[in-house]
């Protein structure tokens, strides 16, 4: 495999050109070659790095060094962007390990030229610099960063890779192992947290920071000062003691274990590389990076990660099956029926994002006052944290009001109910609303499991009813399941999608089926775990059976978060619809009846244990399964349920199931949501009659 052959692997690469220009440095410092990375598109399509781009950059670096009399080489990017890293689309097309290895070697060869030139090299980090984009900078002798730059990170671990074009060796040697662990592992696993320009300077990644207004000018002035010797760059000494280094790597391991329980290799490979970086040479370090890339690129975890990333970046923004945006009606006032905690959380979200009047109603003045008071207090908290200006605080506070009289909804365009989960109650609420509001006013329900069609059935205008299902905590989880009931019309649906977008939520269109997608799958899944426990599997064995998947929490911890009563209600709804697949655990009923907050109690160290009173409630049978058996059964059930949901047309595609699980349940990228994992583990074949996704969509096609 030669590097030039890689072009055939990446046939549709959007090539980023590396322009070279000779500039006269200020202060009479001499001539420098300035390389600009630019893919010819505006800042909404960032520069990416594929094989053709890398080869072009290599030519540019060679040409720069060949310029007679130059004293420095500088690299920067088109406005607001240095580079967004490797071409992920192309990476997903690699079919052979030698290709993957060659890709790593090519990056090292090209970027390495910036470290081994005849003159000092400078990276001017003018904006977005992700992954390979930041690694270009790390290879340079010196770095400046714009204080206005946003989106600087090594996100490889987040996707299932390692910073394998030099980052894993260079960064710890530049700023020390502890800060490198923060950037490479901790930030990546913390929902891909990114750095801003000033933080990049504080961490010591950049040697100097300049304002955005004249960043290139001031950077080149600084280059001139460094070349002339007016400025001597000094960097804080890195603690290279094995104690400090090992402690940093151990901290990274604890973070990875806490989130992933060893379920996916990328963070651990990254930590191994960081650990070795203290003692191995640059060449050895880079060779180890190549090997890691070879393994990870040829692993399904990365492919699932890239697939999941694409779903959250693209499909989430263009929901499958959503009607034309132009049909959406403007929403100038929002009503919320109910003033409990969920309703209050909705009110806070709506007022912050829509910035229109939001009115809460409830049965008595005390509840209304409490709900409105909670929202006002939350607004005050945001203002105290500096996240709202005093004027914005005043504006939002004035927008949130309450009443006991639904007549206040008369001029609302969108009313959502968040009252008790009982069909008769909700039907009555909608009937009351219809007496007040306009015929076009959208009536939305935040029901988690009831039939939206039935809820609308007694109305004169059932076509304006839509399901709008949030996930708890409302402010955190980015998913809204938008439920199309039998009679829901397109303008209503379009309005719901438009509202969801303004709320900065990702909306997935789902059919009006019991418990929709996320709760249905989670209930089926928890139901299998509970069933195993009911039959006699020790509770900790059952609860930890899924640990190898790296889910964000165990089933029983999730049960506690949701609340046993809510979980029971959803389970009963699903049991009514599908009694064979959704048994209702008697143990769960007893737990709810006893008012227990969950199965586990928590000791002072935060470890779960089964307290005696809960244990006394729990009646188990004689059949104890192993963890492997529980896991196989639970996954088979999930696979079967996904298949049935797709057959029923609950969502358009398996991709939508995955998007829901990623965004509504926080299921991890390395599983691709869930169907890529069900496919690659063989569960889909065994339990659901075949794969959900064609080979290659979220998995390696091995040539």
């Amino acid at each position, binding site marked *: 495999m030669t590097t030039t052959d890689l072009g055939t692997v990446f046939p549709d690469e959007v090539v980023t050109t590396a322009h070279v*220009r000779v500039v006269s440095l200020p202060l009479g410092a001499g001539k420098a070659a300035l390389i600009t990375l630019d893919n010819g598109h505006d800042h909404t399509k960032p520069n990416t790095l594929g094989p053709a781009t890398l080869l072009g950059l290599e030519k540019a670096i060679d040409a720069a060094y060949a310029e007679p009399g130059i004293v420095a080489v500088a690299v920067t990017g*088109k406005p607001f962007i240095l580079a967004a890293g490797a071409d992920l689309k192309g990476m997903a097309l690699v079919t052979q390990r030698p290709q993957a290895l060659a890709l790593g070697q090519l990056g090292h060869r090209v970027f390495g030229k910036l470290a081994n030139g005849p003159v000092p090299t400078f990276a001017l980090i003018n904006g977005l610099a992700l992954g390979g984009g930041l690694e270009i900078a790390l290879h340079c002798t010196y770095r400046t960063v714009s204080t206005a730059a946003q989106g600087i990170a090594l996100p490889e671990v987040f996707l299932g890779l390692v910073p394998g074009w030099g980052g894993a060796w260079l960064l710890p040697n530049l700023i020390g192992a502890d800060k490198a662990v923060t950037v490479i592992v901790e930030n990546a696993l913390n929902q891909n947290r990114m750095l801003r320009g000033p933080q990049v300077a504080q961490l010591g990644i950049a040697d100097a920071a300049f304002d955005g207004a004249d960043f290139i000018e001031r950077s*080149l002035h600084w280059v001139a000062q460094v070349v002339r010797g007016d400025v001597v760059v000094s960097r804080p000494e890195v603690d290279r003691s094995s104690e400090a280094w090992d402690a940093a790597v151990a901290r990274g391991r604890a973070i990875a274990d806490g989130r992933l329980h060893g379920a996916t290799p990328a963070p651990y490979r990254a930590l191994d590389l960081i650990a070795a970086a203290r003692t191995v040479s640059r060449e050895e370090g880079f060779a180890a990076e190549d090997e890691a890339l070879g393994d990870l690129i040829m692993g399904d975890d990365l492919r699932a990660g890239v697939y999941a990333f694409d779903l959250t970046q693209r499909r989430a923004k263009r929901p499958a099956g959503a009607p034309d945006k132009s049909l959406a009606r403007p929403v100038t006032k929002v009503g919320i029926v109910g003033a409990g905690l969920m309703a209050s959380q909705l009110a806070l979200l709506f007022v912050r994002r829509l910035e229109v009047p939001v009115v809460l109603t409830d049965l008595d003045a005390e509840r209304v006052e409490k709900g409105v008071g909670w929202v006002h207090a939350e607004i005050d908290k945001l203002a105290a944290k500096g996240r709202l200006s005093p004027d914005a605080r005043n504006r939002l506070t004035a927008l949130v009001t309450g009443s006991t009289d639904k007549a206040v909804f008369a001029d609302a365009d969108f009313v959502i109910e968040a009252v008790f989960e009982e069909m008769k109650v909700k039907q009555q609420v909608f009937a009351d609303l219809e007496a007040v509001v306009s015929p076009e006013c959208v009536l939305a329900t935040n029901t988690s499991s009831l039939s939206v069609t039935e809820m609308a059935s007694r109305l004169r205008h059932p076509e304006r009813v839509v399901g709008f299902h949030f996930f708890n905590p409302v402010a955190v989880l980015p998913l809204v399941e938008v439920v199309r009931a039998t009679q829901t019309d397109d303008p209503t649906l379009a309005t719901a999608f438009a509202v969801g977008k303004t709320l900065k939520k990702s909306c997935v269109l789902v059919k009006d089926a019991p418990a929709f997608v996320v709760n249905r799958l989670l209930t089926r899944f928890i139901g299998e775990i509970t069933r195993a426990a009911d039959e006699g599997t020790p509770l900790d064995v059952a609860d930890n059976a899924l640990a190898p998947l790296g889910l964000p929490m165990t089933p029983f911890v999730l049960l506690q978060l949701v609340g046993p009563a809510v979980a029971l209600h959803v389970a009963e709804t699903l049991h009514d619809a599908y009694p064979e697949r959704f048994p209702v655990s008697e143990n769960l009923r007893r737990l709810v009846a006893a008012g227990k907050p969950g199965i586990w109690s928590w000791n002072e160290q935060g470890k779960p244990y089964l307290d005696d009173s809960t244990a006394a409630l729990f009646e188990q049978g004689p059949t104890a399964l192993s963890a492997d058996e529980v896991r196989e059964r639970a996954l088979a059930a999930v696979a079967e349920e996904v298949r049935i949901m797709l057959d029923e047309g609950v969502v358009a595609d398996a991709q939508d199931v995955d998007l829901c699980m990623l965004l509504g349940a926080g299921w991890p990228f390395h599983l691709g949501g869930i169907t890529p994992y069900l496919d690659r583990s063989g569960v889909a074949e065994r339990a659901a009659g075949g794969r959900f996704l064609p080979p290659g969509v979220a998995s390696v096609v091995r040539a």
Partner: protein
Amino acid sequence: MPRSTRPVRDVLFVDGVRTPFGKAGPKGMYHETRADDLVINCIRELLRRNPGLPPERVDDVAIAATTQLGDQGLTIGRTAALLAGLPKSVPGYAIDRMCAGAMTAVTTTAGGIAFGAYDVVIAGGVEHMGRHPMGEGVDPNPRILAEKLVDPSALVMGSTAENLHDRFPHLTKERADAFAAASQAKYAKAVADGKVQPDLVPVATRSVEQGWGLATDDEPPRPGTTVDDLAGLKTPFRPHGRVTAGNSAGLNDGATAALLVSDEAAAEFGLTPKMRLVSYSFAGVEPEVMGVGPVPATEKALAKAGLSIDDIGLLEINEAFAVQVLAFLDHFGIADDDPRVNPYGGAIAVGHPLASSGVRLMNQLARQFEERPEVRYGVTTMCIGIGMGGTVVWENPHHADYTQEAAA
């Protein structure tokens, strides 16, 4: 305050900078660089060069542009101040007097300092003639033609220069070309001697095709230009005319900015004046011979200062057209090659991004004052479209009598 005791305060020119000037058009170095970014660079450079001045003490930012559209619109003095990072408490505004925009920004804010409304101002100008060609979006009132208010040639600057040749037949094309060649030579020598570079602030230039560049030098000059080179050039404004691209300023992109303060503010912030404002005047002439404007403007400004042309040791006159400079010199009995006039060359060499040029003249006069402490007074003057001239008389603080009088 009782009316009679309001003091008139001294106005000091503390510092001035400019971008390198570029050629307008697709091949020019600033073609893909925004006009506002040019002037923002100048404002930031002024603040960097004068670290003793707290930015919040700037009382106003006056920025001129002839075409106040797009990146030269939106009240450019205010938006440029914000984008340059000045505190939001610092106001700004836009000014237009065509070629004398920056000069007017200086005189208008200087009036405010003298009156006591301001202590510190930034005044400058910008013209990106590539992004905003002359005449963009103009809509002359039809009465101008219908009532013959103005000769139709008055709106074409090159034609007004031809008209000047008509009015003063002894100002021949040969004299104009000789003056132009000398301008190129004087500019080239000034660059070689390092006189021009200290006023320049480098600008990063954007190009989609070539990547970022850095403008550090003026693009328009044509060093080595001879009279013979100029003789054969086309006369685009009139067949067999006299005005050519060689004896005129070109179409250019660039920006300038100056820092002006009251004498009290100079003392408070430890700022050293480069020039003291003595007087200024603007005057109108027939629009079809706008190039003669500096004559009455200078007469007026000298009269207000109680000075005569003999008191003026250095003259920075804008070279929109060679003939227009010759008309001025002819009027005052000054030789075409008098060493007091444009010692570093002028706009024919360096370029004339309309509304920015006034401060370039001041920068150069200030440098020359430093070199020539025996000169007490100097003049910056320029012709202005639609028939005007503007003149500012300055005093050299390096002159021996300057401090004596200040002490007295």
